């Protein structure tokens, strides 16, 4: 039994310490934004934020998360009050099939938390680890730039309980 902090709340988890975080998020906590893609840390569909850093949850066992803060897409915003990153992705219509998009948003969010105005090259370098098979890369790029602008305006402050 361990306590896992997800989106600002403590959860008691009864699972083996080597269980991947992704399984706990989806199966136990019913947080289904993070997706199972490859299970090998190669596609990024499972990306979440741990203590401010983007992490592939499929290759992150529970035992590495003692005392750490996990943020999933559900922790950034809601349908009624989407976070800037979510608004930006919708406004740019950056999703096609959408399977990779939650991971894309989480890695972009982690980037924007560290670097409020990333260059094109910095965004490409960071998101290189997340794969999109539909080919919406140019829209994703635009969406991250738009999110950066939205985050600088007062009316688009992150929703309560969002990433630190």
């Amino acid at each position: 039994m361990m306590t896992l902090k997800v989106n600002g709340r403590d959860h008691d988890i009864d699972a083996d310490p080597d269980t991947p975080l992704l399984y706990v998020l989806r199966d136990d906590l019913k947080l289904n934004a993070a997706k199972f893609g490859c299970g090998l840390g190669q596609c990024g569909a499972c990306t979440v934020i741990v203590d401010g850093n983007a992490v592939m949850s499929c290759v992150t066992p529970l035992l590495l998360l003692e005392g750490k803060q996990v943020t999933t897409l559900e922790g950034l915003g809601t349908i009624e009050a989407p976070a800037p990153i979510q608004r930006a992705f919708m406004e740019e219509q950056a999703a096609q099939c959408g399977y990779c998009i939650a991971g894309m948003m989480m890695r972009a969010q982690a980037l924007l938390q560290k670097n409020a105005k990333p260059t094109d090259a910095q965004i490409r370098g960071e998101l290189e680890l997340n794969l999109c098979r539909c080919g919406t890369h140019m829209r994703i790029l635009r969406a991250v730039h738009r999110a950066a602008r939205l985050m600088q305006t007062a009316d688009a402050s992150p929703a309560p309980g969002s990433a630190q």
Partner: protein
Amino acid sequence: MQILMASSRVMWSVAAGVAIAGAVVAFALVWRPAIAAIEPPAPQSFDAALVRRGRDLAAIGNCSDCHTASGARDFAGGLPVPTPFGTIYSSNITPDAETGIGRWSEAAFRRAMRSGVDRDGRHLYPTFPYDHFTNVSDQDNQALYAFLMTREPVHAPARENQLSFPLDRRFVIAGWKLLFLRHGTYQPDPAQGAEWNRGAYLVEGLAHCGACHTPRNRLGAEQARAQFSGGDVENWHAYAINGQSPAPVPWDAAALFTYLRQGWHPDHGVARGPMAQVVANLSTVPESDIRAIAAYMAGVFGAPTADRKRRGDEVLAQANSRTGPASSSSTAPAAQASNSDATGASIYAAACANCHETDRVLPYGGINLGLSTALSGPDARNAANIVLSGVRPVAGERGPIMPGFAAGMNDDQIAALLNYLRARFGKLPPWTDVARTVADARRSQSVFLQTSTGFSNAPAGATQRDKP
């Protein structure tokens, strides 16, 4: 009295003579004339075939790696090269007239390659490996010159080196050269074939393999008697590439060729760290040159002893069967091991085994860690670097990739993992102070880590990296 005066006069004149002779000798050692500046030659004045050959030679010399700073223009210099003596910045070797080598004649270029002196007559620091480049033929220097003088000129002034006195004085380098610069350290060996000799010429000269793979003495010179016994570069260990190689499976010419050509080999793994740029460059040059390097280096490695070969075969057999001790996680001694070992075993099972224990072969799966030289090497640096940064994909190529765990694991967790891997797969005594190695690696990776951008200044027609 007169005698006394006379003898003191004699002594004075002897002393003065010695001083003057010393000054003349010192002057002769240190002073090098400037070579007259030229008008930058028009790119069209160079023969296209010569430029093309120069391109391949520049790739073999890995020139772009040091002479291109991260994110900056090709060959424009400015890359900080850390040395035990301070930081030295690479120079701009584009044909820019003001800040590059645009006003250098071919003779000036040749002199720099051969004896480490720039056009103005200033001694160059031996971070520029002229102790190897002195072996480059006139013909090859001509081709390299033609290639560099036809690049796009970039205005990029040199950055000030960060060296303390007296090393910031360039006359000191003349003394270093007197001690360590030997001309003609490569001579063809008529007893060997053409391929071996070609390999020797490249390895001892332009490819300057020893610059990283040979340990250096306290004055920063390669230790001739320990050639290829392993060295240090940018917080990576450059493995021994002679009989002392720590590779679990002994290298041979065929494996070396594959590794140098495509950047990885199923029995040895992936070229990482500074070697990544080397293999990216080598993937673009004529195949015959890679075969020559492989043939020569196979001789340097030497034929494995019967015992070493048997151990290599065992490791390979274990890696290829999923029931052997090297590939079955159920045999992990977690039960009777310490807490730290148990942590390492759990991390391995959860984060690593999915790729590293699979019947998917490289590059689609990870290498069986029983084959990993990083785990049988003398220290934990390379393994720590790889766990932290992973293996980034190279654009447009099929090759192994691995996620980095810098964000997901702290130093103690990575140290526990590495200690476990060392014991289980390296089957060797533990490394010392692994947690500190990991902390150092974490600090330095942000400085040196760059994804391979490939050889972006290649003319059309350069061959693609071989497909797996």
